[in-house]
């Protein structure tokens, strides 16, 4: 590329603007800082990283070759290998990677203040997450679209392959449980939210019937019908909430709702995909993209002030939402949005089979993740435009701040975040909810933040509608992830069981479908159940566990990438994946160690189990808590074992990667590179690039 004076000047201005925006939000103290600075900082950081770092990686480290035929071109079968225009691939890839993770993580991490989470989202993404996504996409593309597990097995050895498989399965279980918990907490004692979320099921089925039977393949017609029905369901929930007699049918505590979600998950896993999963996914993708675009435009248009301080006193680990100090827990809490191991499964799944030109990996791999990171910044803004007192009142579990409203506001105000019972009652009334105290899980506070942003943009009169729209928006794609995750978990389990008993491996054999779906649902259902009966809300246990497992999957992906770089003779560039890998190993090992060994019962699983059994033995627990205490104690011990297992898995694969690299550098035999040889492309350049 030619460098001209004007382009140097433009990039200099972007760099200066970015540096002053970051400096502004980092050093700002006292009065509130404007949300626009966050957006400016983010856009400048992504632009610079994309223009220079990503371009350098593509050209110098990976040496992408646009004359080389991609697997989509060579293996074009019109089904999964299809050469596709890069903007279309970008859309598919982004819709696949952006789920509820980047919305919930930043909301929870805002308890440390706005600064730590924001910086980690920005720099974690451009130096870690985007690099991971782009490299795995590239390596998978050069291997005909092989999955991460296959690449780990081929490039590192059997240990790497098994580790990737086991980690993927476990992360899926914990992910589904924690997302299920988020939905349950959003529906608890809210007839409006519950009825709206329940209505999404028959609506999805109707759309499924429409697309499958009535007008086969008419995706846009069916989706438009579904989106209209979903909006009507949000309004219908309001009507239902006002009908005495009807509203009681949808007014439930957590436990029955959790069982309903578990039953739904099982049904969704065994029903044909066209009936529930596929149509729900069309709806959730449209709603998701639409809402994210409207939220971003509203933030830019309204330029709201951030009320949360840059740092709170909770960086010492005493935070009410989850226990644990800034280091390492901010890096665990925000996985999606900064670096998410799960992306490596998408980047080595459908996407590499669609690329029509090698050059496109920068835009799709690196750019796709940068856009997800921007979504996480928007979630951080939505959480921090709330009054900090309100934010803590919504997100703190009753077990920490006290059961009654008066106790809760007294505790939170004593922390230096003033809030009153009247203020919370008025807010709950505006949002059409009975109460907003202790609505843990992140979804209600994100919905309040989004409703207040949308309310300022489109009129305050509709706050309650916006709130329940936001709840529906979160619930619909959480349930999509839940359906899809249960299904993938079922396939993985069938694959594993098939090694022991071949009949189990047949994915369409009904007894095997029922049994394996049942096992997967029971596994996440257990964690969901425990989360619901836990008086501290469960999210404080499950979310860190999810963060650790997702980061460990990222570490496995980076091990595969580092191993391939070293084996391809690019040792001097291996730092691009080795540095994020070292950082992930440090934070996950530290976090796991603290979750295991900390003597603070709010952080350490074993300390919590011991403290609870001590209280139980001394008879210091009220009867309702004593009844569930044995289950909670067992769960804490199980979580300790799980964390130990995760970290052992991590060190095993890091050790295996180092062994392979060492042997390669000493000239000893290692598994050969499995890259497919070069074939020249025959695709017409004019057809490709318009």
């Amino acid at each position, binding site marked *: 590329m030619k460098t001209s004076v004007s382009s140097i000047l433009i990039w200099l201005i972007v760099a200066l603007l970015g540096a002053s925006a970051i400096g502004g939000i980092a050093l700002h103290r006292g009065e509130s800082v404007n949300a626009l600075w966050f957006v400016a900082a983010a856009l400048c950081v992504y632009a610079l990283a994309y223009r220079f770092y990503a371009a350098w990686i593509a050209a110098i480290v990976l040496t992408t070759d646009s004359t080389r035929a991609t697997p989509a071109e060579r293996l*074009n*079968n*019109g*089904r*999964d290998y*299809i050469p596709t*225009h890069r*903007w*279309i691939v970008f*859309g*598919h890839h982004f819709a*696949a*990677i*952006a*789920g*509820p*993770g980047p919305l919930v993580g930043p909301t929870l991490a805002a308890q440390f203040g706005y600064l730590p989470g924001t910086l980690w989202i920005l720099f974690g993404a451009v130096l870690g997450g985007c690099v991971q996504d782009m490299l795995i996409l590239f390596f998978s593309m050069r291997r005909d679209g092989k*999955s991460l597990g296959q690449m780990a097995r081929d490039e590192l050895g059997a240990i790497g392959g098994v580790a990737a498989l086991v980690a993927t399965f476990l992360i899926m279980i914990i*992910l589904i449980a924690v*997302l299920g918990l988020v939905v349950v907490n959003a529906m608890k004692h809210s007839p409006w939210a519950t009825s709206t979320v329940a209505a999404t099921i028959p609506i999805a089925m109707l759309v499924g019937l429409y*697309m*499958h*039977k009535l007008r*086969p*393949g*008419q*995706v*846009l017609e069916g*989706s438009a019908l579904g989106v209209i029905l979903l909006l009507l369901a949000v309004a219908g929930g309001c009507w239902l909430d006002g009908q005495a007699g009807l509203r009681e049918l949808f007014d439930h505590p957590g436990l029955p709702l959790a069982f309903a979600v578990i039953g739904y998950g099982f049904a969704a896993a065994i029903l044909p*995909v*066209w009936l529930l*999963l*596929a149509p729900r*996914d*069309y709806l959730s993708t449209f709603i998701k993209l639409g809402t994210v675009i409207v939220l971003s435009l509203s933030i830019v248009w309204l330029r709201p002030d951030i009320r949360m301080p840059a740092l709170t006193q909770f960086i010492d680990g005493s935070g009410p939402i989850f226990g644990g100090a800034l280091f390492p827990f901010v890096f665990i809490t925000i*996985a*999606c949005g900064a670096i*998410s191991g*799960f*992306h490596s*499964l*998408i980047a080595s*799944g*459908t996407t590499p089979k669609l690329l029509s030109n090698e050059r496109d990996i920068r835009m799709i791999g690196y750019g796709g993740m940068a856009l997800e990171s921007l979504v996480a910044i928007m979630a951080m803004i939505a959480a921090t435009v709330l009054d900090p007192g309100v934010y803590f009142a919504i997100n703190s579990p009753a077990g920490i701040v006290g059961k009654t409203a008066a106790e809760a506001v007294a505790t939170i105000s004593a922390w230096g975040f003033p809030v009153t019972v009247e203020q919370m009652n008025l807010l709950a009334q505006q949002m059409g909810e009975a109460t907003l105290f202790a609505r843990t899980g992140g979804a209600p506070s994100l919905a309040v933040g989004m409703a207040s942003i949308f309310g300022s943009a489109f009129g305050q009169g509709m706050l309650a509608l916006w709130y329940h729209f936001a709840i529906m928006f979160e619930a619909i794609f959480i349930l*999509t*992830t839940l359906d*899809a*995750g249960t*299904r*993938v978990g079922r*396939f993985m389990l069938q694959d594993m069981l098939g090694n022991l008993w071949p009949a189990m491996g047949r*994915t369409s054999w009904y007894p095997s479908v029922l049994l394996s779906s049942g096992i997967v649902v029971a596994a996440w259902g257990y964690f969901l159940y425990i989360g619901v009966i836990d008086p501290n809300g469960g999210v404080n246990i499950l979310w860190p566990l*999810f963060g650790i497992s*997702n980061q460990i999957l990222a570490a496995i992906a980076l091990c595969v990438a580092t191993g391939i770089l070293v084996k391809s003779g690019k040792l001097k560039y291996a730092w691009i994946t080795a540095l994020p890998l070292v950082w992930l190993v440090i934070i996950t090992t530290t976090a796991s160690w603290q979750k295991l060994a900390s003597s603070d019962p709010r952080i350490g699983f074993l300390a919590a189990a011991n403290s609870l059994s001590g209280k139980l033995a001394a008879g210091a627990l009220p009867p309702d808590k004593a009844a569930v205490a044995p289950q909670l104690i067992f769960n804490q011990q199980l979580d300790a074992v799980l964390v130990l297992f995760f970290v052992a898995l991590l060190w095993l694969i890091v050790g295996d990667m180092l062994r392979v690299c060492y042997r390669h550098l000493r000239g000893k035999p290692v598994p050969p590179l499995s890259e497919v040889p070069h074939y020249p492309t025959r695709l017409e350049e004019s057809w490709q690039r318009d």
Partner: protein
Amino acid sequence: MAKRLNNVLRALWRVIRELSGDDGYERYLAHHAAAHPGTRPLEREAWFARQQQQKWAGVKRCC
């Protein structure tokens, strides 16, 4: 001016159709005609069922 706007809107509509998979059957027919001339392509309904089944056999959605 009006013609240009018309072209832009048409292009946008094509992108939306391709992104959502709305034009999938047309693409399938075109591919089928080119790759397997002389054989009968699947009917719309059978094609859609096969395509959905295949789409959801792997990791398609993330956290």
